[in-house]
């Protein structure tokens, strides 16, 4: 998203996310503050708001036009060859479910619980990336730089993750520590340690309890952000930011040394 410095106005994207209620509390408060204090920001928000139309109402009228009977007949008439034997659900089951959806809407999700479960173990990194992509330097602006509160935050996060965290252990070369907090992604606790890198903007070291990972550093790109990740016997770690991979790898090695195994 934006790579703007502290004083530039928020991007249109951020303002739209504000209107759509897609920001976290901090980001929302930041925009609230700007709206009160900076007239051009409020004017821009109004302009974006003008693009808001009664979309749902309008398009719901289209549902009545759908040739539902014809589509249903088509569905019933699909050749059996369309169904492969390895399918976990029979065609009859699918049709019954599809039909029930017409009546019961989308509440029938649970009917599909018996379908094969493909849960990927990198899900937590995807969640973190989706969250971090919304961060701008402003997100971290007002956070306390008080060392004692940092120590207290790290202590609390460390306890919840079962991993003692000291300020010295999580200090990253070239980046300024801003905050540690626990995020809950659908029941999975993720420790998020946020830093501000003066050159590349927000950066996070995230930790979650996980076994069976590799200690070797690996790299990937997610949502336009660079990620370096590794594991200890009990935890998985990831560094995510706009820093080049080489920078992140240096930081990762420093964290690997500092953190308890």
């Amino acid at each position, binding site marked *: *998203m934006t790579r703007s410095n502290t004083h530039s106005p928020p*991007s*249109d*994207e*951020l*303002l*739209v*996310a504000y209107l*759509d*209620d*897609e920001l976290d509390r901090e980001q929302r408060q930041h925009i609230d503050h700007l709206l009160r204090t900076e007239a051009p920001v409020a004017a821009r928000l109004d302009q*974006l*708001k*003008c*693009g*808001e*139309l*009664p*979309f*749902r*109402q*309008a*398009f*719901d*009228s289209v*549902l009545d*036009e*759908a*040739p*539902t009977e014809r*589509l249903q007949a*088509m*569905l019933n008439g*699909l050749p059996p060859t*369309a*169904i*492969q034997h390895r*399918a*976990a659900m029979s*065609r009859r089951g*699918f049709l019954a*479910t*599809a039909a029930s*959806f*017409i009546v019961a*809407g*989308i509440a*029938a*999700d649970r009917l*599909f*619980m*018996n*379908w*094969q*479960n*493909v849960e990927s173990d990198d899900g937590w990194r995807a969640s973190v990336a*989706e969250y971090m*992509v919304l961060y701008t330097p402003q997100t971290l602006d007002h956070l306390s730089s008080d060392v004692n509160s940092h120590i207290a935050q790290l202590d609390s996060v460390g306890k919840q993750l079962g991993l003692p965290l000291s300020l010295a252990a999580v200090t990253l070369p070239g980046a300024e520590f801003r905050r540690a907090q626990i995020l809950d992604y659908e029941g999975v606790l993720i420790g998020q340690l946020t830093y501000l890198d003066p050159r590349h903007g927000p950066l996070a070291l995230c930790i979650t309890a996980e076994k069976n990972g590799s200690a070797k550093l690996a790299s990937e790109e997610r*949502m*336009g952000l660079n990620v370096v990740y590794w594991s200890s016997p009990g935890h998985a770690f990831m560094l995510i930011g706009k820093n080049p991979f080489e920078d992140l790898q240096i930081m990762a090695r420093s964290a690997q040394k500092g953190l308890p195994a």
Partner: protein
Amino acid sequence: MLPRLWRYGLVLSRQKHLADDLVQATCVRALERAEQFTAGTRLDRWLLSIMHSIWLNEVRSQRVRQGQGFVDAEQELSFDGETEAQDQVLAAQVIKRVNALPEAQRETVFLTYVEGLSYKEAAEILHIPVGTVMSRLAAARLKLAETAPQRAMSDKSTGERR
């Protein structure tokens, strides 16, 4: 679900007969790939996502799609009383303006503001980063604001999502 699927087909293709074809192709593909459906996720999202891929990778690349705007050209609505007629005119205007957006913006607006998907869910269906969803919505809103007609419409617009 079938009407919703058909409506998405119409938003993508802007032509009713293509929307029919898209629903059929999507159902066939879903049956073929039933075992790929991930338990605990939502069937409607999965079907929308299949339709998006079929449109993007197959139908769109094969067919000339110079559809008319589907509402102004084709919509035949019954007019019962003045209020209803007015609503229908407004609905037609909104659809027409969304229809005039570039395809990428059009379908992002549809998934987010009509289907009520979160940025994350829309991004998954479209196979794009959340940041791209955000920039498409910002661009679409600016374009829609430029062509904003009667004030009455925007007044009705609050609380659209979820």
